[in-house]
């Protein structure tokens, strides 16, 4: 009786929420396998033709390489800067620390369109070369709050007595950092870098201002194709992007555990 009432009360939510979350993904993957020339749900057979044509398209392959380079570099830059910052924030005793921490979250709060515009103008001003340097720097700013939050929350629960123990046993501060502190927080750092990779790999809004013909990323190509005309090839490209992200996250998970 109560079981039934629970079902009636929650099943609409379950169906609605998971449909909203998952149907878009399912549909992208499904339409990439259609035999028709429009992105329809395949009802009359499956084909991998769209993936074949995808990998014969040099422009798309180039874009994937660019995206991978940008995302990897972003993960490294945001990972290092984010970890350093998180360390500072957890260990330092400064007045108004919370206010400064909120400042670190600004890139999350200001629309990426503004970040893109600002970065383009500023990059021109400081003569930061267009292409990779600008894109990577902008992406690492967008990913910074996430790395910062993840590493910080791990560090907050870090038992500083481990470091004391290490130093009592004779390791100096630097040795302690490398032998104790970094290994303990490494999983959080890798998780942060992973998220930085994913954010960068899918970023469109700020990137659209910064790309050059030789550094066009995959999301830019997807957007342009959506604007110009629909072909199942976009679904195949999007699916490939999803696959790469999932592979990277699984690999990252392996490394951190």
């Amino acid at each position, binding site marked *: 009786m109560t079981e039934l009432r629970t079902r009636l009360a929650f099943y609409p939510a379950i169906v609605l*929420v998971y449909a909203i979350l998952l149907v*878009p993904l399912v*549909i992208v993957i499904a339409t990439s396998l259609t035999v028709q020339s429009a992105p329809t749900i395949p009802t009359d057979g499956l084909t991998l033709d769209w993936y074949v044509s995808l990998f014969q398209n040099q422009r798309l392959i180039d874009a994937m390489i660019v995206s991978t380079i940008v995302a990897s570099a972003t993960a490294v830059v945001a990972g290092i800067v984010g970890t350093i*910052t998180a360390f500072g924030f957890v260990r330092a005793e400064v007045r108004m620390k919370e206010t400064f921490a909120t400042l670190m979250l600004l890139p999350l709060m200001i629309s990426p*369109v503004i*970040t893109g*515009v600002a970065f383009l103008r500023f990059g021109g001003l400081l003569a930061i070369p267009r292409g990779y340097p600008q894109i990577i720097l902008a992406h690492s700013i967008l990913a910074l709050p996430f790395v910062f939050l993840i590493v910080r*929350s791990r560090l907050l629960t870090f038992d500083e007595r481990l470091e004391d123990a290490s130093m009592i046993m004779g390791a100096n501060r630097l040795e302690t950092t490398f032998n104790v502190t970094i290994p303990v927080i490494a999983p959080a750092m890798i998780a942060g870098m992973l998220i930085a990779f994913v954010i960068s790999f899918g970023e469109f809004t700020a990137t659209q201002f910064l790309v050059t013909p030789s550094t066009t990323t995959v999301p830019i190509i997807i*957007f342009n194709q959506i604007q110009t005309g629909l072909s199942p090839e976009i679904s195949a490209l999007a699916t490939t992007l999803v696959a790469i992200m999932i592979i990277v996250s699984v690999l990252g998970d392996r490394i951190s555990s």
Partner: protein
Amino acid sequence: MNLGTVRLPEMPSLSMLRDRSTAKLLMAIGLGWLTIFFIVPVVVLLFESLNFGEGSLLENYSTALSGTYLRTLGRTMAYAFITTIVCLVLAYWIAYYIAFKAKRQMLMLGFVLLPLWVAIIIRYFGVSLFFLPTGPVQQTFGTDFGVLFSTTGVIVGLTSALLPFAILPIYNSLQSIDEELINASQVLGARPMSTLRTVIFPLSLSGVIASALFVYILAAGSFLAPAILGGPGDFMMANVIEQSFSYSIPLAAALSVVFTVALLILIGIFNHYANISEVLGDL
């Protein structure tokens, strides 16, 4: 000997001092990085929005705060507001189920998190494929129910993209409620709905606030949802800024400033009730 006893107590204090200054240095590196590559560029943009040529210094602002642009600002805030409400209702509903009723909590949470690993543009693309003439809705019903290229389309897209950000903080706050408090409420005579209203909801409020904040900020700044799923009348601030950038950078800059200030005022009001870095730290 005397020298030794004098120096010994000094040694730890010296190294502690060095320790603390190292931490401050690290903090300064982070804030410096943020300042150079984010705050300074935004401030530069602020300067660009000012008119140093003919006419008033704030000429771009009078344009940015006029007619269509002001309406767009209002529309942006309204769309973000509607999205936030829709997301909160759905998120609370499902988070309550996962936290208190579900048998396979981790699986259900996993499927909530899964979309976060997929680029947002792909998820919007998926929503549009769903309602396009070639998609299942039109193939089945012969109509997209007016969703595509409309306000509804934008809201559906934003909800789909931002729902995970709404569910997680609410789930966390529900999860951390001591079960004994719910038992206490029941024993004291409260029916399930009263318990929800008087005990569970007030205790999960911090999660609700975090969710609302997150969804609102991300929704308001969205460029892709209106661009892919909206009609021409559904442009939001991000789209207008992008558009004006191609013909008037000062105007784009002024629009950016207006939008950011409006949003920061809202966030400031929010921050008054709940510390942002604390609530977002829960993520």
